[in-house]
């Protein structure tokens, strides 16, 4: 097999896995949009906040330590314990449910029936609030996140695919990151679970009813408050998973909130209302941008991925405005 074809295949495989990581972020957007019609600008910050909380709990960091020390003249920073990753994840989930409750109680409860743009603006405010809260609670330094996920290329895959080069010494076998492989499995399980909840449970159906019409859902006895807390909690869980995977790659730091930028073209392409759409959109964007960088990047100076993802999404939008799997909305005038 020619070398360029082999490496092209490697790029496609890595693109697929990058796409899964993008889809993980996009899933959070889809969930909230599906349930409430809100485009949640704060989803990236939710990931950052969740990951910061997880590291803080694992390391026994005292939240708001800087504030407490400044106010009381104390010198406290840590509780002095280190908590197991699994327990810390569960405790973080409790915090995320608390965040969901607060978001519903103090923000969206007061905005029922408002225009979508008002709800969107509220999420922008929420993003900045959570970003600042995270900094004050846990500090802005970069934190190492180690929940035991393996990292680095799989040597086994590399060695067992070298034969594909048929003696070509410039082919070193396929590179596949073990963290990406695990992320793919996690994402697949997450999607199956989310689709099952959304399609086959009472709360899932109630979620979809709320998305269609707040007032109508209320009139048939669905508790809007409960559904929104439920959805924001699930979105918080998805954000935590995304935060763990991305945080393991780069450490937990402010940039995690910017991964939302990677989810936008995925949503435009896959549709804002479809969980499978987020996955397919992620895969297309992941493969598309990596292949473009591989083939055209060197001719134009590289760094094409960020803008190419949006160009690709725009092209899809022209032909299918609702995205690949989004619901077609026809409004009569």
């Amino acid at each position, binding site marked *: 097999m020619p070398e360029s074809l082999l490496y092209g295949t490697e790029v496609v495989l890595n693109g697929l896995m990058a796409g899964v990581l993008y889809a993980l972020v996009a899933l959070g957007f889809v969930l909230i949009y599906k349930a409430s019609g809100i485009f949640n600008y704060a989803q990236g910050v939710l990931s950052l906040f969740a990951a910061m909380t997880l590291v803080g709990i694992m390391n026994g960091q005292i939240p708001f330590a800087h504030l407490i020390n400044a106010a009381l003249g104390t010198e406290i920073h840590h509780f002095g314990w280190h908590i197991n990753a699994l327990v810390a994840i569960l405790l973080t989930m409790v915090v995320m449910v608390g965040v969901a409750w607060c978001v519903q109680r103090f923000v969206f409860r007061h905005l029922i029936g408002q225009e979508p743009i008002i709800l969107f603006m509220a999420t922008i405010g929420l993003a900045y609030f959570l970003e600042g809260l995270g900094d004050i609670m846990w500090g802005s330094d970069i934190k190492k996140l180690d929940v035991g996920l393996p990292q*680095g290329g799989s040597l086994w895959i590399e060695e067992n695919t070298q034969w594909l080069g048929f003696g070509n010494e410039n082919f070193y076998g396929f590179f596949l990151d073990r963290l990406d492989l695990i992320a793919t499995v996690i994402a697949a399980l997450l999607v199956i679970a989310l689709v099952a909840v959304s399609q086959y449970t009472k709360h899932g159906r109630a979620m979809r009813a709320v998305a269609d019409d707040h007032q109508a859902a209320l009139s048939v006895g669905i508790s809007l408050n409960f559904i929104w807390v439920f959805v924001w909690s699930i979105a918080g869980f998805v954000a935590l998973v995304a935060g763990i995977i991305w945080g393991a790659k780069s450490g937990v730091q*402010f940039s995690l909130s910017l991964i939302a930028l990677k989810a936008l073209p995925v949503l435009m392409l896959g549709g804002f209302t479809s969980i499978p759409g987020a996955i397919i959109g992620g895969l297309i964007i992941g493969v598309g941008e990596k292949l473009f960088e591989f083939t055209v990047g060197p001719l134009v100076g590289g760094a094409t991925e960020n803008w190419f993802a949006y160009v690709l999404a725009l092209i899809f939008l022209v032909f299918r405005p609702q995205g690949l799997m989004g619901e077609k909305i026809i409004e009569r005038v």
Partner: protein
Amino acid sequence: MRKSLLMLASAATLTAGAASADLVFPDLSYRTGPYAAGGVPFSDGYQDYFAMLNARDGGIGGVPARVIECETAYNTEKGVECYEATKGEGALLYQPLSTGITYQLIPKVSADGIPMHTMGYGRTSAANGEVFEWVFNYPANYWDAASVAIKYLHDQNGGSLEGKKIALLYHNSAYGKEPIRTLENLAEKHGYTLDTLAVDHPGQEQKSQWLQIRRTRPDYVIMWGWGVMNQVAIQEAANIRFPMENFIGNWWAGAEHDVLPAGDAANGYKSLNMNRVVDLPVFEEIKKHVHDAGNAAGDGSNLGKVIYTRGLYAAFLAAEAAKKAQEIHGVTELTPAQMRDGMEALEITEELMAERGLDNIGPAFSVSCSDHGGSGMGLIQQWDASAESWTPLTEFIAPDAEVIAPLVAEDSEAFAAENGIAKRCN
């Protein structure tokens, strides 16, 4: 109309020209945003040093130093806003810690007559004081850094880089693109081939670039990164099992927070540095007069780290320039023009550094009207993951003046021609 413009111009001159009752050093910091991990320690070091001078010596020459902090979030527009908001406070010297902001401020500080110090960043050709009257980039600049890295590799390879393949992984911004031309010129001189790989802001995703590095197998990778780009690059290098000892970051890609997230995998990673990372006597003074008094700029946890030390170094150079300006003009309160004179007469000797408790923090150097660039020296340090510390591998290495000087002259003269600037220092 003409009268109004004249009035505006004279108002601006008065604003920038008046001596202030205290010595004002605006700190265009970034404690928020994707680059805060570097911005916080630099600002902490910068502010703590002035706070120590105020607490211990009553300021500089008996006049208190006042640091005005303004948050830029490493955003160029906010940086310009910060400049506009603080220049009327009697600002003596700007330190924007961003190449993007520097480029925007060069015409502004030149028009307003306020010095700007871009230590190891910014526009490299500002080293030519004959053209850039108000901009200083001592003790070293990007092109110096690039040539120091190549000189080190040259020595490591027995005096020849012929046939070697070097990849430059750079932040796709004004900052990241600065060394490209120098490295290209050095490639012609030394016979190595150069591959350039751009990484878009913020650099969270670099799979494509590292797959390319894995395919092309360069002998060395030089990194011009900042923020999350550094941490991701080091992790990705470890993922493809690129030999860490062949991976060299510039001095903005060589802090503790760049390597710690990768854990043991970062062991052996090298970087340049323009300042030594040692336990300086001045740290004790800062602890005693600033931290213990509860006046630390941050939480005190950054004391002694790479970027904190660099911020402190920048403040030391600013304070010494102010002192020199006071000596030259026989005054204690300074105008920006007097501050510039102090900077142009700055002489940093080993004795002076030792006297101030910053023993050999950097190389000895002097500044002049025509040379705003300093010695240009840098050292190579290596990360020891088990000890979680940097080990210096070399002494300070001088840059390749033969290649750098003509580039500085060419670029600065082009700037002078474009902007109708007459050469000074005759």
